[in-house]
């Protein structure tokens, strides 16, 4: 059997990312220590190349490798978002890793491997490729979570992430095996056809669907599968936390939406109820528990859980019985819009957190931000913008994201859900603005404690500029991104 050139071309971006990862890992031992950051620039260059290639594929719809992989605008949207997130993560890591004295080139290799797994997830048309992509992403992230090998917290985070991640993969795989038994194939289109001919209350089919919800629920961190999130986000190196919170969530949502709409679209009535319960539970628990957190990484972890809850509203809308096609599309498009917006504001917030140092350690308590506006007015102002955006206050991008989601919910006849989400968005303003209050209203204490300082570097400044530009520009002028998501979502089904 020969591999047709067309198939190879279709997955060229994935191949480039994997090749770059191997190149970074291979060059690492022969690169002298002062030049290690060249490998980071090599990774960035490969990603820019992929960005160009994927932009060219944006209007195509190609199936490759006997329908294992699909390249459509939907997949390309997620890939473009993932490239942007990975480039920003690599840039923010440069200064952070040096500060933590863990500047090792394999870090970039693992980031790229995780990225290639995510790219496979979002452009998979078969449960086999989705499983392989998920595992490639997760295995790389387990290693990255424990990257601060000298620190017990990081190792514990890696162990917890590994145990719960492997557990959830096992559940996901069991669901896939049941679906295979029922449909006779793991291809999403074949599963959709088989589901259409079956009775919808077939217990095996429902069990398979529930197992898939559980498996994906762990990956996107929604209640009640969120237990690992705060611990892992707190313990992991901050740059890795940002990458996990943004990229792995986006990729998992991408795969989740494709599986449930293209594969299990016939079961809408069943998963709609399930996701509705999960969505409301996530909104309530994520927002309420975030209030009592004193560690900012833990607070942002609960906030990321809450944001997954907001994004789920779009999925619930897409599964709503009686909603028109246009409303369903609006629901899905607003999930994509929300996750793109969420990426910029969360990356920005984590970049500020990564810059804050206390002695030789990270200053990751909310207390460490006390009086930041007096000492570092620019950083404090940027953090203010990100917090305001996370809370969803106009004119920031966070408001636009929430606005489209709530509008979709109202149009689908789920006004009560929009009201609940709005109430908890108000609750979330309390804990986001508390950070702002600590920065602006409290005087820096002249105590014996080590004075927190900012480890700024030009590259980090570029990352912050990109993030804040994304938050403000998307807030004032969301048109192009909205158009892109609307176009991308048409490719589903």
């Amino acid at each position, binding site marked *: 059997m020969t591999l047709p050139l067309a198939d190879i071309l279709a997955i060229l971006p994935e191949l480039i990312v994997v090749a770059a990862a191997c190149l970074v890992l291979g060059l690492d031992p022969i690169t002298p220590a002062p030049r290690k950051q060249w490998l980071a620039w090599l990774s960035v260059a490969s990603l820019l190349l992929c960005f160009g290639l994927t932009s060219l594929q944006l209007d195509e719809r190609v199936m490759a490798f006997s329908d294992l992989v699909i390249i459509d605008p939907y997949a390309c949207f997620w890939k473009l978002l993932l490239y942007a997130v990975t480039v920003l993560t690599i840039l923010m890591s440069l200064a952070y890793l040096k500060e933590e004295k863990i500047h090792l080139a394999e870090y970039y290799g693992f980031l790229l491997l995780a990225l290639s797994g995510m790219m496979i997830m979002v452009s998979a048309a078969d449960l086999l490729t989705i499983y392989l992509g998920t595992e490639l992403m997760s295995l790389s992230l387990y290693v990255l979570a424990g990257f601060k090998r000298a620190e017990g917290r990081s190792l514990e985070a890696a162990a917890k992430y590994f145990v719960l991640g492997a557990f959830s993969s096992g559940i996901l795989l069991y669901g896939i095996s049941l679906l295979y038994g029922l449909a*006779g194939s793991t291809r999403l289109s074949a599963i959709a056809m088989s589901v259409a001919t079956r009775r919808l209350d077939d217990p095996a089919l429902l069990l398979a669907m529930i197992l898939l919800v559980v498996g994906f629920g762990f990956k996107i961190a929604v209640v009640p599968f969120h237990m690992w999130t705060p611990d892992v986000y707190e313990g992991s190196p901050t740059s890795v936390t940002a990458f996990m919170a943004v990229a792995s969530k986006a990729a998992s949502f991408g795969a989740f939406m494709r599986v449930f709409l293209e594969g299990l679209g016939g079961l809408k009535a069943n998963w709609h109820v399930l996701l509705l319960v999960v969505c409301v539970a996530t909104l309530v628990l994520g927002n309420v528990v975030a209030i009592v957190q004193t560690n900012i990484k833990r607070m942002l972890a609960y906030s990321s859980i809450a944001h997954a809850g907001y994004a789920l509203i779009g999925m619930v809308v897409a599964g709503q019985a009686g909603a028109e096609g246009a409303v369903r599309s609006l629901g899905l498009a607003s999930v994509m819009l929300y996750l793109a917006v969420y990426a910029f504001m969360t990356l920005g917030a984590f970049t500020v957190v990564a810059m804050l140092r206390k002695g030789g350690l990270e200053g990751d308590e909310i207390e460490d931000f006390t009086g930041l506006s007096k000492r570092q007015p620019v950083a404090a102002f940027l953090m203010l913008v990100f917090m305001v955006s996370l809370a969803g206050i106009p004119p920031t991008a966070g408001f636009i994201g929430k606005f489209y989601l709530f509008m979709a919910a109202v149009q689908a006849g789920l006004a009560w859900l929009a009201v609940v989400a709005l109430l908890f968005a108000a609750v979330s303003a309390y804990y986001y603005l508390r950070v702002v209050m600590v920065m602006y209203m409290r005087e820096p204490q002249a105590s014996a404690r080590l004075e927190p300082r900012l480890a700024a570097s030009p590259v980090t400044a570029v990352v912050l500029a990109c993030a804040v530009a994304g938050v403000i520009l998307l807030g004032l002028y969301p048109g192009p991104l909205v158009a892109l998501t609307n176009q991308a979502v048409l490719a589903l089904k």
Partner: protein
Amino acid sequence: MAIPLSYYVTLSAIVFITGLVGVLIRRNIIIILLSVELMLNATNINFVAFSHHLHNVAGQVFVFFALTVAAAEVAVGLAIIIALYRSKFSINVDEFQLLKW
């Protein structure tokens, strides 16, 4: 005499639940890892049984991928466990208290 499909699926379900319960109640991280392996192998039984029943080879192909991934997962998992043991001299999950579990 051919063994009916339901026997295989029942066996797989029993093995899967054994693994599931093992992950949830055991406190030794190695045992937890082995329980995860039980879950994955239950899946493989399912795939092979369905593949045989449906006269469709895709399920057996899936098993090869699942086995490979499981091997990679164990490699990463054991590496993490060794690093953890070096810093804490314990592999009992109850003693990992730096982060609230």
